[in-house]
């Protein structure tokens, strides 16, 4: 068996002192498409933000392509409420290391940079990937993936629709030449038409060979795209479903909430 691309070992985290997710174990292979499904507010986004290095993990390890991204050991509890720990305590994970390793996170409901144009954003986007080859080809590809963006090339993000913003975010993520792309709720608040357009684009990204982790609330969108569906509930992985037995919406709701609803 080959070494997994991304591996989480007993990862715990949250916003101190509130623990959001606990003991998450997960491995994603280099050719895999993984979906996350779970109720809102149960820690999916916090988990992804932790992997992306925006939030310090409390415990456990994040391994990407065999390299450990976060510091060893457990985050020590804060003894004082008022002491400025940021001053003396190093971050336990660095966003730039994560990005440089090729693990790219596309934020949820992304307003991105409201006062910048599509062109400007896509100009600075590959900054993280200057050293990686293929940026020029990826630029070409983006035009094919999102033909809609070409019409809006010099409008500010503020004036774009939700779907178009999402496309710019994904395009910016792709320009960083990801080895693994994490999409957080790409279909949030999109019209059905745009959702179809977006899922087509995501399918094409699949074809280019970039592995994906997708978090979404839309069951059909998820099940049609991924090889493996992970149910996330109360800050832990409660169940994994393989491609063969993908459930439909009602079955999934039943699995998730059982008799409690």
């Amino acid at each position, binding site marked *: 068996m080959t070494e997994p691309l991304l591996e989480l070992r007993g990862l715990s985290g949250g916003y101190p002192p509130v623990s959001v997710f606990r003991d998450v174990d997960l491995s994603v292979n280099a050719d895999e498409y993984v979906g996350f499904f779970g109720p809102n507010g149960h820690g999916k986004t916090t988990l992804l933000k932790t992997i992306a290095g*925006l939030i310090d993990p409390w415990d456990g390890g994040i391994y990407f392509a065999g390299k450990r991204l976060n510091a060893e050991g457990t985050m020590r509890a804060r003894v004082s409420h008022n002491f*400025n720990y940021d001053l003396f305590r190093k971050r336990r994970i660095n966003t730039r290391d994560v*990005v440089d390793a090729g693990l790219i996170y596309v934020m949820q409901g992304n307003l991105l*940079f*409201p006062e910048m144009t599509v062109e400007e954003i896509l100009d600075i986007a590959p900054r993280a990937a200057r050293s990686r080859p293929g940026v020029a080809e990826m630029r070409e590809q983006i035009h094919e993936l999102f033909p809609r963006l070409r019409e809006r090339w010099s409008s500010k993000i503020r004036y774009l629709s939700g779907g178009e913003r999402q496309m710019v975010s994904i395009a910016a993520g792709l320009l960083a030449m990801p080895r693994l792309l994490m999409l957080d709720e790409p279909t949030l608040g999109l019209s059905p038409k745009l959702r179809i357009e977006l899922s087509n684009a995501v399918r094409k990204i699949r074809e280019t060979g970039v592995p994906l982790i997708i978090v979404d609330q839309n069951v059909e969108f998820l099940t049609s795209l991924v090889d493996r569906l992970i149910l996330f509930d109360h800050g832990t992985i409660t169940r994994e479903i393989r491609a063969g037995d993908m459930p439909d919406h009602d079955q999934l709701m039943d699995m998730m909430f059982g008799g409690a609803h």
Partner: protein
Amino acid sequence: MAFDTFMFILMSGILLGGLYALMATGLAVVWTTLGVFNFAHGTFVMLGAYIAWQVTQSVAGGFGFMIAVVLSILVMFCLGFVLHFALIKPFERNQNVVLLAVISTLAAASIIENSVLLGWGPRDKQIAPPIGSKIDFFGASINTFDFVILGVALLTLFALAVFLRRTTMGRTLRAAAQNREAAELMGLNVPKLFAITLGISAATAALAGIFVGSLRFISPTFGADPLMKSLIVVILGGVARFTSPIYAAFVVGIAESFSAYFLGLYWSPALLFAMMIAVLLIKPEGLFGHRSKTL
């Protein structure tokens, strides 16, 4: 009122406006990017002037003035860059960051002011202007150097605008200002970008300070006035666009020079503050644009 008097007042107002634009843009850029108000901005203006004065003492003439400008801007850029890590970065994740930044920048202002007092003493100083000639402008006799100041100030602002819009570096600065998390996710070094912003702000303040220092006397306490004027300008204009405080600076400059003529020196600041409160009451987002944090 004679036409030449009118022209003279108008021109001195426009000159003031140019200086205020330079000062206020620095303050506005820090506000929109770092999200804090820098109360040491006035002392940046003052310190920039003193550094330039020191250089002109050793190297005289127009050449000395040029060196003074370059050196002062460089030193102040570095100071601004370093001060970000000392004054603002330590509590960037604290929820009271705005208030804490007020106190830390006020304290920094006190340190700069008193250090200047220790180093250069309390006596007034003036930077010798490199050009002394006057020209006749629609009947009003105006210093040639005033036009140079106005030109350089506007050119600097224009260059800054081009830098922010057209260069990749400037674009990353704007990206960090508009959405910190997203900028981090693009692999940008946000603290460094913030430090550069404070450095740029300090450098423009220094340039303004040199000009002020060659028009008037400078003393260790003269930073308070530029700070207040920049504040009025930023409030009046808002920060919706890069140009908003620049327009407002000219409004304030012209209003100040006319009110000083008609109402007297004492009442002119009062008028400006009253204007500022009125604008805050009626249109808190500023006269020129919407209320939003942008760059």
